[in-house]
C-alpha cells in the first residue's frame, strides 16, 4: 500500500495533491490517503475519485491549522501501524516540509521533487535539482520510501473511484509537535481575489516594466482576462510589488492556462516557476531573451506600447 499525504488549507484541497495521488497510482499498489484535520473529512469523495480506498483523518484538539511537526507525528503513527511501501506527498513547500518531519522522526532518507519513482531495493528516483534544470538519478536505501512528487510532473487523472472510507484517528502528539503553529492569519499584502495558484491566466511583469506605476497596464490586462498579476524576483526585491506575487523558484510555482511574461528576460529561477504553463506568451524588446526559449509565442517590442494596444484590442474583440 502507498500512503499519500493530501494537503489542504482549512478544508480546501491543494490541487497538487491530486497529481501526487495520480503519481502514486502508477506505482501499482493500493492507495490510501491521509489528511490532518477533521474539516478535511469532506475530501473523501475527491481522494476516492483519484484512487484512494481509505482516507485516514488525523485529528487532535491542539491542531486547528497547519502544524507541520504534528503532521510528521501523525504520519509516523500511521506508518508504524499500516507499514506502507511508500509515503508520498506533493512537492510543494508544505508537502516537502511535512514529509521532512516524518523523515526526521524515523531517521530515514527522503527524496524531494521526484519526477519518476521506481519501487525496489533500493528504490530509484529521478528528482529535479537546480530549479528544475538538473535531473538527479538517485537510489534510496530504505525499506520505506519517503518522497515528494515534483509539482506539475504528473497530469491529474481521475480513477473514477468511489468515495474513500473515512478512518479517523488521534495521533499521539507530544506538546513540542504543536509548539509551532499558525496563531493568526491576515490577507497581508494580497488583495484577495484570484491567487497565483488558482489563476487560469497570469500576466507577469519584470524589470522591463520600469517601476511600480508600470504595473497599472499589467493589472488592467490581468483583470480583463479574469486572471491575476505575477512578477519576477527583481520586481519584489525592488519593492515594486508584494512578495506574494513573485513567480519562480523562490516565489510561487505556477502552471496556468496562459502565462504572459512582459519585460521578463527569464532567469533560471523564474523559468523554474512558470515553464509548465500551458501557453506562454512573451512580450520583450530583446529577441535573444532566454525566456523566448520556453515561450510559445512572442511579440518583440516595448511592453508599454504593446500592453495597452493588446488590452484595447481584446476589449474590442469581446465587444
Amino acid at each position: 500500500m502507498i500512503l499519500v499525504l493530501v494537503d489542504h488549507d482549512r478544508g480546501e484541497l491543494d490541487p497538487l495533491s491530486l497529481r501526487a495521488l495520480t503519481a502514486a497510482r502508477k506505482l501499482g499498489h493500493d492507495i490510501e490517503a491521509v489528511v490532518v484535520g477533521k474539516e478535511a473529512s469532506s475530501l473523501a469523495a475527491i481522494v476516492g475519485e483519484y484512487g484512494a480506498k481509505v482516507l485516514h483523518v488525523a485529528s487532535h484538539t491542539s491542531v486547528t491549522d497547519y502544524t507541520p511537526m504534528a503532521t510528521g507525528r501523525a504520519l509516523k503513527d500511521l506508518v508504524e501501524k499500516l507499514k506502507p511501501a511508500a509515503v508520498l506527498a506533493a512537492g510543494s513547500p508544505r508537502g516537502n516540509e511535512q514529509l521532512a518531519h516524518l523523515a526526521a522522526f524515523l531517521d530515514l532518507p527522503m527524496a524531494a521533487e521526484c519526477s519518476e519513482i521506481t519501487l525496489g531495493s533500493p528504490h530509484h528516483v529521478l528528482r529535479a535539482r537546480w530549479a528544475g534544470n538538473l535531473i538527479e538519478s538517485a537510489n534510496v536505501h530504505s525499506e520505506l520510501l519517503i518522497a515528494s512528487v515534483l509539482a506539475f510532473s504528473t497530469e491529474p487523472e481521475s480513477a473514477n473511484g468511489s468515495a474513500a472510507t473515512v478512518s479517523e484517528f488521534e495521533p499521539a502528539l507530544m506538546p513540542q509537535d504543536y509548539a509551532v503553529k499558525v496563531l493568526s492569519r491576515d490577507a497581508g499584502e494580497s488583495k484577495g481575489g484570484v491567487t497565483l495558484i488558482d489563476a487560469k491566466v497570469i500576466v507577469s511583469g519584470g524589470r522591463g516594466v520600469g517601476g511600480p506605476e508600470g504595473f497599472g497596464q499589467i493589472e488592467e490586462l490581468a483583470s480583463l482576462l479574469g486572471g491575476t498579476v505575477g512578477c519576477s524576483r527583481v520586481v519584489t526585491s525592488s519593492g515594486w510589488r508584494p512578495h506574494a506575487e513573485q513567480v519562480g523558484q523562490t516565489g510561487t510555482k505556477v502552471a496556468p492556462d496562459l502565462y504572459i511574461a512582459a519585460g521578463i528576460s527569464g532567469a533560471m529561477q523564474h523559468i523554474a516557476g512558470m515553464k509548465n504553463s500551458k501557453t506562454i506568451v512573451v512580450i520583450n524588446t530583446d529577441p535573444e531573451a532566454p525566456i523566448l526559449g520556453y515561450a510559445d509565442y512572442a511579440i518583440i517590442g516595448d511592453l508599454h506600447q504593446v500592453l495597452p494596444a493588446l488590452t484595447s484590442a481584446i476589449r474590442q474583440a469581446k465587444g
Partner: protein
Amino acid sequence: MDVLVCLKRVPLAGGTLILTPDSRDIETKHLGFGISPHEENAVEAGVQLVEQMGGTLTLLTLGPSDAEEQLRSQLAIGATRAVLLETDGQEWDPQGTAAALVDAINAEETKFDLIIFGAESADSAGYQIHIRVAHALNRPIITNVKSMKIENGVAICDRVVATGREHYEVALPAIVTVRDGLNIPRYPSVPGRMQARKKPVDMKKAEARVPKLEKVNLALAPSKSKGAEVLGKGVEAVPALVEILKKIGTF
C-alpha cells in the same frame, strides 16, 4: 543574543549548466562561487540582531576547504567567527550533512539562542536539513519566514502564503529558515573586509557517512523549448496575438 547562521557554498551558475565528464557534478571550472540566495538574508538578519541586542554571530558551513572564501565574505558583513566542516569535496546526502551540523553545533561552547538557515539551497532541492537539525536539537522550527523580530526571548515571525500572511510566535531557543525579502542584505564595507581576514575560522574535518539518498548521476533537464513563434514587432503583432488568445479559449 547568540546567533548561528548555516551557509552553503554553491556555484554561481547564471545561464546554462554544464556537467563534468562523469556526470556526477556541475562543471565549475569557469564559474564563481557564492552562497544560496536566501542565505544572504539569513546573515543580514543575524548581523542586525547582534547590532540591536549584542552577542555573537557564528557562521557554520559544511563543504570543501575552499568554502573559507564564502565564510570570509560573510564575516566581512559583520559575523563574529566561523566554523568550516571540511569534506573531501564530495556532495553529502541530507542525513549525513544534518548529522555533521548537529555534531558541530553540540560541540560549540555557545548555546545558540537562534539558528538561521536560508529557506532552500540553490542546488540540491532536498528540503530537509533544517528540519532534521531541529529534531536532533529538540528545538522548534519556523520555516520560510519573511519578517521576524525578537522580543523578550520570543521570535515573532510571519510567513507569506498564497492567501496572505501567517503569524507565528515561538520562544527561544529556536530555529528559523528565512526567505528572500526578509531584509535587504548589505554589501561588505572595506574595513569589514579587512577585519574579516583576521577573524577566526575553525577548520574541522568531517567524516562522511554512507549516503542513504545515493546520487547515481546528474543529467541536464530536457528543455521543453520548441522556440517561440515570433508574431511580429510591437503593436503590429497585437492582432495576431488576439487571434491566438481567442483560439486557445482565453476569452
